[in-house]
């Protein structure tokens, strides 16, 4: 198990990561989720031993990693853009670590790994001839070849386009499960985190503001900003939160976060609202509605609903799509 205890990292005299405390249990895939520039990549590089710690400690199974150089940590890092060795073929890239160790049966293992990442027959290609998604798969296979104690993934999918990203996220999750690898992943994309990870840590301005099981964090974001970063559309507080929850017949709370789809058009719904704006998308109609005493909110309606600006409508509140904020 990897433990970070009050880890701080400085780059060029500036504190990039402050007092990060986090545990990555064996066999888990933990995602560090945060906006770009929050220090998550630096944190990952510090775990790999590429950046030195300014304070705090890193421990593996209780043993301090201070003074253990990168190549002796057994943590393989998959870079954002793969960082394949351009002068080696795909096969030699994947077999790189095996050759370093003079391990027997390199060719067979390389073939297995290329199969695992869905790129059989690519062993003799040069990295420059691969697409972005293929490069990432090769980089992943190369790192898995080490059978690392911990796999570090730095935004492994963010350089890819949307469709490919979704497909590869599924593959990544399957590969990590099959290989039983403990992994620490950093990403700015909450959907990527949800697709791949089972634990999540939210990072902001160099600090870890919340961590726990995926569902736990998802259901109870620590604060409004975290909720917004997790993809909630609106955060209401004070009297507005109380009023919305009361209208919907739910228990009262100080702060509540709503997904866009938490409010659906329903003539019999308990919440009365006036439509300000309606816009059709391929999946649904997106509404902007006004609720007295609460203000403007997002809502959705099915494509056959006929709601126009100025209409008085009823709304149904889906309690699985809202979260009470700041209550563990």
């Amino acid at each position, binding site marked *: 198990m990897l433990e970070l205890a009050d880890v701080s990292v400085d780059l060029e005299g500036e504190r990039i990561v402050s007092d990060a405390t986090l545990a990555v249990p064996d066999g888990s895939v933990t995602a560090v989720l945060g906006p770009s520039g929050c220090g998550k990549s630096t944190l990952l590089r510090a775990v790999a031993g*590429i950046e030195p710690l300014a304070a705090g400690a890193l421990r593996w199974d209780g043993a301090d990693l201070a003074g253990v150089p990168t190549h002796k940590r057994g943590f393989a*890092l998959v*870079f954002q853009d793969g960082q394949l060795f351009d002068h080696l073929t795909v096969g030699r890239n994947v077999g790189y670590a095996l050759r370093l160790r003079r391990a027997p049966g390199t060719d067979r293992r390389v073939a297995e790994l290329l199969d695992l990442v869905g790129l059989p027959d690519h062993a003799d290609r040069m990295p420059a001839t691969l697409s972005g998604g293929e490069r990432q798969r090769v980089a992943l296979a190369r790192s898995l070849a080490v059978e690392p104690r911990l796999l570090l993934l730095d935004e492994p999918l963010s350089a890819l386009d949307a469709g490919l990203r979704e497909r590869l996220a599924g593959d990544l999750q399957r590969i990590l499960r099959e290989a039983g690898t403990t992994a620490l992943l950093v990403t700015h994309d909450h959907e990527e985190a949800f697709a791949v990870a089972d634990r999540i840590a939210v990072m902001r301005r160099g600090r870890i503001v919340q961590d726990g099981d995926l569902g736990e964090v998802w259901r109870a974001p620590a604060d409004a900003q975290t909720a917004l970063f997790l993809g909630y559309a609106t955060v209401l507080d004070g009297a507005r939160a109380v009023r919305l929850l009361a209208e919907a017949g739910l228990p009262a709370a100080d702060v509540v976060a709503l997904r866009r789809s938490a409010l659906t058009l329903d003539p019999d719904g308990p919440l009365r609202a006036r439509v300000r704006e309606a816009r059709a998308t391929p999946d649904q109609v997106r509404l902007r509605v006004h609720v007295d005493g609460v203000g403007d909110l997002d809502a959705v309606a099915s494509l056959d609903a006929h709601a126009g600006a100025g209409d008085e409508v009823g709304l149904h509140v889906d309690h699985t799509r809202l979260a009470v904020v700041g209550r563990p």
Partner: protein
Amino acid sequence: MTAPVRRLLALAALAAVPVAVLGLFFVVPVSGMVARGFWPDGEFAPDQVWEVLTRDRTLRVLAFTLWSAAAGTVGSVGLGLPAAYVLHRTALPLRRGVRSALLVPFVLPTVVVGVAFRQLLGAGGPLGFLGLDGSATAIVLGLVFFNVAVVIRVVGGAWEQLDDRPGHAAATLGASPVQVFRTVTWPQLRPAVVSAATVVFLFCATAFGIVLTLGGSRYATVETEIYLLTVQVFDLPGAAALSVLQLVVVLALLLVAGRTRSTPVVRRPATPHRLRRSDVVPVAVTLLLLAAIAAPVLALLVGSLRVDGAWGLENYTALSTTGQRDALQVSVTAALLNSLRTAVDATWMALLTGLLVAVVVTRRSRSRAERRTRRLLDGLFMLPLGVSAVTLGFGFLITLDRPPFDLRDSPLLVPIAQALVALPLVVRTLVPVLAGIDDRQRQAAASLGAGALRTLATVDLPVLWRPVLAASGFAFAVSLGEFGATSFLAREDFPTMPLVIFRLLGHPGELNYGMALAASVVLAATTAVVVLAVERLRVTSVGAF
């Protein structure tokens, strides 16, 4: 007229001036020199040339040339690699200052380097007990002193541009620092190292001033042998034979250099890392190198301030005289003025020609013929880099002596020769910069309505003015120190500093020797000031090939 033809014509028009310059002042003199050897009395007599090439002495000279050049190259690369790493990858304190200091030897006039080494290793010098004075080792040390800067510049420049992430990736895959270097860093660095080694070998094999001042009569290289045969023995067929031999070797080397020349692509310059414990050895080598480079210079400085066993400035005050027993025709101060005037002329000539060449070879080609032409021109203008300055100087003397080009008495003769020597350096400084400008920038400017000149002013000039200034400084420094060609061409009553120093060394008298030291200090200081000013411009392509 079709567009491709028009483009080729425009290319030809732009290239016309530099090609004419190179043809008249390089190809004609060099081939004239060669012809003089093969047609000694107007009749083709290659057997004489063959006889020269098979002489025992020629073979010895050739063997020594190759041996000393190889040893100099190995030494320069061996010391230059660790220094390149320390100065371009680590955050060594005062790194910029050390970098500038290590660049200075490369442009120090060869005669000055020779004098400084004799002062250091000579009988009375601080390292005189080593008994290296006049030895082959001293020559090799001199060559290394001179060329290690080339390795640091070329390899350091490439190393600085190397992305460090592949190395990190290898480390997380379990590669130790040594394995990272062997499997990841070295393959990326190899072209730069090969290219630097080739150029250094070229410089070592054609070194003139150093070998002449350090080797005396015991050791000769092809280059000094050409000088000896021409000036003292008047064996023109012999000199021509050696020139041809040299030309062939140099052409082969230039081809190798051209093939491996690294074109550093700015990928992701890594920030220098803090010094680590594993950096001890390279840092020690760098400091040793710094000391080894400072030693001869300090010995020179100290020697110039010693008069009759006491401190004094007499050697410097004597610079306004013509030396003991009138060793010189003009005073040293007058020679300094000559040098500066000549350098100004050589600089504008080299710069104008170099700019034209750089523009011609970096414009994007639209057809294969065009691309071939441009690459050919690029290689053509590298030629003066490797052709013996002695051959060039002597060729000037025997071909530019009749109408319409009777330049023997022209004050421009020396600057022209020096400009040709500096030309490849100017071209190599400007080409990477011009080639680095994304052509789409020019297209964007054009699509916004800018004409050709306006495009040049908005896109090229802002990037180019610093390199142009740097190249000028570099050409200026090269001209100040040029010795090989100048020794043939300068008029007796209009000598430059290196000539005066060499003459003072050859004349007996303690004051004459002291004046040679003082003059060397003055010349070295002048050159160093120019080079350090250039270094402040931070143009990375300066001194890279």
